[in-house]
């Protein structure tokens, strides 16, 4: 009986982990591309060891919302997503997209607030100007890679 639970517990861990991996791989592969402009979060500590603190230009346009919610975004001429409005349940026009935001430590956070990279690769990512995401259309976004000012992916050969 105990050995049964031991094995079932192991299966639970493997299933949960691989389901999470599968869902996120699928989102990266077939999600809608979203490009957000980065804003320097704090010029003195943009680079902190092996990760980079991220902030997005969108956050300034958003002002000071009072609670977590969703944004409606649409790409501009260069393909960079811009804020259209806060989501209020009204139907979206074609090309528009929903993205979740959350309030954490008094700041607006869209997706992740950090980009992790291997030890010693900090210089490569110092040129980052945009973050490229994959959205699942229901609000969740995954950061795929960072882009420089010419939209060239960083850290890829």
């Amino acid at each position: 009986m105990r050995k049964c639970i031991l094995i079932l517990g192991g299966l639970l861990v493997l299933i949960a982990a691989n389901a999470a991996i599968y869902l996120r791989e699928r989102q990266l592969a077939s999600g809608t591309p979203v490009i957000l402009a980065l804003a320097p979060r704090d010029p003195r500590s943009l680079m902190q060891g092996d990760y980079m603190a991220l902030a997005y230009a969108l956050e300034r346009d958003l002002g000071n919302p009072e609670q977590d919610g969703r944004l409606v975004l649409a790409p501009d001429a260069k393909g960079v997503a811009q804020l259209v409005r806060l989501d209020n349940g009204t139907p979206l026009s074609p090309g528009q997209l929903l993205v979740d935001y959350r309030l954490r430590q008094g700041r607006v956070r869209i997706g992740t607030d950090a980009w992790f990279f291997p030890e010693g690769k900090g210089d490569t990512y110092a040129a980052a100007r945009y973050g490229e995401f994959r959205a699942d259309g229901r609000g969740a976004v995954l950061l795929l890679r960072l882009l420089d000012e010419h939209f060239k992916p960083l850290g890829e050969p």
Partner: protein
Amino acid sequence: METTAPDPQARRRVLDWIAAGRLNPDHAQAALITVAGQPRPEDWRRNLDRLLLGLGVLLALAGLVLFIAANWDGMGRPTRFALAQGAVVLGVAIAWWQGLDSRPGKAGVIWAAVAVGPLLALIGQTYQTGADPWQLFAAWLMLISPWIGIARSALLVLLGVILANTTIGLAWDEHPWRMLGDMGLFWFLLGLNSVVLPTWEFLAKRLDWMNVRWAIRVPALASLWTATMLVLAVIFGREASSVLELLPFPILLAVGFRAYRRQNIDLVLLSAGCLAVIVVITSGTGRAILGQENFFGFLLTGLLITALTATAGIWLRSVSREVAQIPPQHAKPSPTRSTHPGTWEQLVAVGLATGDAPAEDTATDPWPLRLLQGAGGWLGALLLMIALAIPVGFAAQNEGILLGLGLVLCAANVLTLRQSTGVIGNQFALALSLAGQGAVMVGMMGMNLSWPTAAFVSAAVAMALFFAAPAPTHRGWCAGIASGALISQLIHTNHFALSTGPVALGIAALLLTPPAQARWRTLARPLSRGLLAGWAGCFLATRMESRWSSGATPGLITIGSILEFLAILGVAALVLRNAPAPQKRRAWLMAAAAVPASLGLVVPGASVALAIILVALEELDTPFLGLGVLTLLGLIWAHYQLDYATPLVVKGAGLAGMGFAALSLWFILRRTWAREYAYA
């Protein structure tokens, strides 16, 4: 011979009796083995077995982790996930294969449960969804909860409790309820741990495997800490607080007193309770009377802390004597006497002692009590020093006066210790001594004395106090301060390699046979303890490995390594001095095991860590064992973290190589022993 449970108190008592001439020094080893559970040669066999196995696994794993880190870029995502999941599967497989009730099987489940955390962290880091950190800990707890249920391991339950606390602590920051302030968080944690603690105690009475005292202390200390924080919040009034927040503290103390004084005596928790009461009382009075440059306020508060600590010390000492009178094997307490019938009568029974038991003289206190006294001493000393500095002034011309006052305090400390051996005298003397030494140091700094000179003077003052006053606890502190001052001087001038000298001296003080150790114990024991602890403290505080490898010249490293190597050989040889011939060969093998460790980690410090571990095993000293393990872990961490010049691959290979060397040695010894003894 029947194995006795290890009893550090009995060990100290026997050494005291030998020093007092009540026991024949030639019987020291036999007496220690009889009553104290002193490690016998065959116990050493088991200790070495565990040490080598633990060390080998630890180093090999650390090496493996660095190896993976080094090849991170070259590895695709699938490989990384496979590795992380493989670790979980490995643990489950071991548990399945060895059975859940065996030691390796339990280790397997715990390994699997711990490995779930890194797996989740890896997924979170690879796909950056921006999920909050608390979600990771919550998922971790949920996924391992089936295993917590079946493993019958208190350690795994403790992991669950810690994960629950961490989840709540982290989630608090993200939740709208954070508007309630930190007080809300403390209430939440207090609520959680005050449910966990009685549940655990209830289960401990029924399930043997849940009855692991040190693990139970974690939720107990967490409840005490949160209740204390609530009271301090009211006292210092940082946030809107109500009288309601004062309530949990006395309730918890009352319940704790009933549980850990009346039912099961737990000196650690009682000491922690005393410390909490002292902190609350002095915070309350301090807030009322402390002000800017208020000489009497600081003086009174300093004296109050010292007096309260001494009072707590007297009470705890009486409780600890009560514990000592209960012979380890018997549940019923023996009739109250001023001696230790348990220890003495055991010796009489085997013919090692004759006559009536000696009267109790200088009881050596158990470690929680010594820790409390140390903490009270430091706090009191700090306030006394501030009080001292106020009339003298921090102005530039008065360092001479401060220095003079410091020396006066030191002299007062010596006088106190020579007059009194009681708890109160010791407590005041410790505060006087620390305040005096601090004042001397500040005075010298003000006089712009160069650092080497100041360090040497500080060390000299500490050593003078060491020899002048015959109190063991105070001697330990003084040796530690002297060692710290000298070693920081050596770091300052990039001669850290030579710091192995004082450490070697400290170990040498232990190279005394039990009879000699008994005779010299008031000098040798605190000296060796202080020096080793001073070294380890210095090392852990500054993580000085980078200084070691960058600043020191190769010649010094060689000298230091040789000193360390000789010291460890000496310890090894003397620990097994009375052992039969085959055991002696083991001693040399063990010493040989220290060589790759010290060479591979670049610093000879690895062998200091090993020396601390060996001494702790010989002396049955759990906190000292903890210090040794901590130093070893610190070394490995520093090796990875600070030495940027060496590539990760080389570091990983070095650690893994040492680990496999230790494991091979373990395997060989196990084979040899299996032939010679019936292996348990």
